[in-house]
């Protein structure tokens, strides 16, 4: 995959030819997250009562039960919490990408997301590697948040 970071909204990842991912649905609660991805912005739900981010988006804060939720842009940075390399994807639409890395990334905002880490040999990735968000376009104008290793790690 090529990575392009020229426009300031976060690196674009060109999808590999012939890849068909499972397309994520949108619901009323997650709409702000997906709307953010249209501009390649990673936005997270924050509870204004206890001032903590949470993920996945919910109608209330799972930390404190509060219902005053705001959306804030995340730094886009985090580290690899766990990683596995898929050699034999279940989704035939992703076979062209194999082998690819699926990782849990712990964002600096202290929430964890499942994602793919791209832009590096999957076998070279290690727990603890610092990563930054990159974006792969979906068909409807949204983008999927992926991550790529930071240069210095």
């Amino acid at each position, binding site marked *: 995959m090529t990575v392009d970071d020229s426009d300031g909204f976060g690196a674009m990842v060109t999808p590999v030819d012939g890849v068909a991912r499972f397309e994520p649905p949108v619901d009323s609660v997650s709409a702000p997250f997906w709307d953010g991805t249209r501009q390649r912005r990673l936005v997270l739900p924050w509870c204004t009562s206890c001032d903590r981010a949470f*993920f996945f988006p919910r109608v209330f804060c799972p930390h404190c039960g509060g219902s005053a939720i705001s959306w804030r842009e995340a730094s886009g940075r985090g580290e690899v919490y766990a990683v596995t*390399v898929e050699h034999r994807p279940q989704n035939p639409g992703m076979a062209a990408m194999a082998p690819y890395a699926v*990782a849990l990334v712990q964002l600096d905002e202290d929430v964890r997301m499942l994602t793919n880490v791209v832009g590096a040999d999957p076998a070279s990735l290690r727990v603890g590697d610092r990563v930054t968000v990159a974006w792969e376009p979906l068909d409807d104008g949204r983008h*999927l948040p992926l991550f790529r290793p930071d240069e210095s790690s």
Partner: protein
Amino acid sequence: MGQRVERTLRGAAAIVGVADDVSPTGVLERHGRALEVAMVLEALDDAGLTLADVDGVCHAGSSMLFAEYLGIHPRFTDSTNTGGSSFEIHAEHAAAAIAAGLCDVVVGVYAATPRGDRNRPPDPVGRRWSPSVESMQFEMPYGLRQPMGPYALSASRHMAQYGTTSEQLAQIAVSTREWATLNPRARYREPITIDDVLASPMESTPLHRLDCCLVTDGAGAFVMTSAERARQLAKPPVYVLGAATCHDHSMISQMPDLTITPGAVCGPNAMAMAGITPGDVDVLMGYDSFTITALLHLEDLGFCAKGDGGPFAADGRLGPGGSLPMNTNGGGLSYTHPGMYGMFLIVEAVRQLRAECGPRQVDGAEVAVAHGSGMVLSCMSTLVLGTEATL
């Protein structure tokens, strides 16, 4: 029938909070999880309690998905669905659980908006066997292979945090296969070595094929009755000494710590109820969906310290002749694994305690643990079983 011991639920539990939401128009503005959460919070408020007090959840779809949404880690869970009577059954089960000391505060919930749904796209609320709408948005697009991918992530984290090696995981498969060689009904009965495991195809790193459970047909059943009635039947009763449950996530990205399962809560709870410690366990039936699963059970049930599961298993003590017989039927790794394998833990534990296991019999077995694992390390449930001598 012999002397009946008086057992009753009467007066043991009480309903302390209620809420409902209806509309004269027949249409509510809120729907789905928003409506369910609102009802739970209103009923808790009516009771003067909060979510932090709740340790039991009932839902006619998936109590596990609903608990994940709420961010709670219940030790009583009920997804019974019989249609409209589900909620009275939830209350009956909750009362019995409270009376037995399994939990203290249980919430039950229901929400449906058939009228308002006519004017909006379908909103799958915790439907039991289909992926949750959250899973579809935040996990499925990334191509994590099921079922082994989430377990591979756990193994990845455990290796990074504790230095656990592929060889140590492989030894678990080797020891389990040793038991299968003694079981004429096991799927695979040829001994394997660590090298065999490491040479088997990589499924989802770091898990090789021989780190993964089988895909086979299989079936089982159990019959349970009162201790009094059991003593009148032909075979030696296997008593339930302890039982406890806990779940703290449904999908892997919601697991609080990928190296600690909710077995760390329910294992000790069940053993405390039974009045035993890990040293008293003669046979450990720990759901081995993958070698990493079995390793986590050893730590979370207290057989070794957190992080030490690899070295603990590495000397082969889990196999025949070892100090901790584990998965004596050959396990999900070598005996059978049709998808939800927990029934077979119970069947083998009972057979061991009745001394029916022939070449694989653990001599003098009196205490067995059947520790079930569900979804992706999401829900654990521990049964401590014992012979008459343990009462």
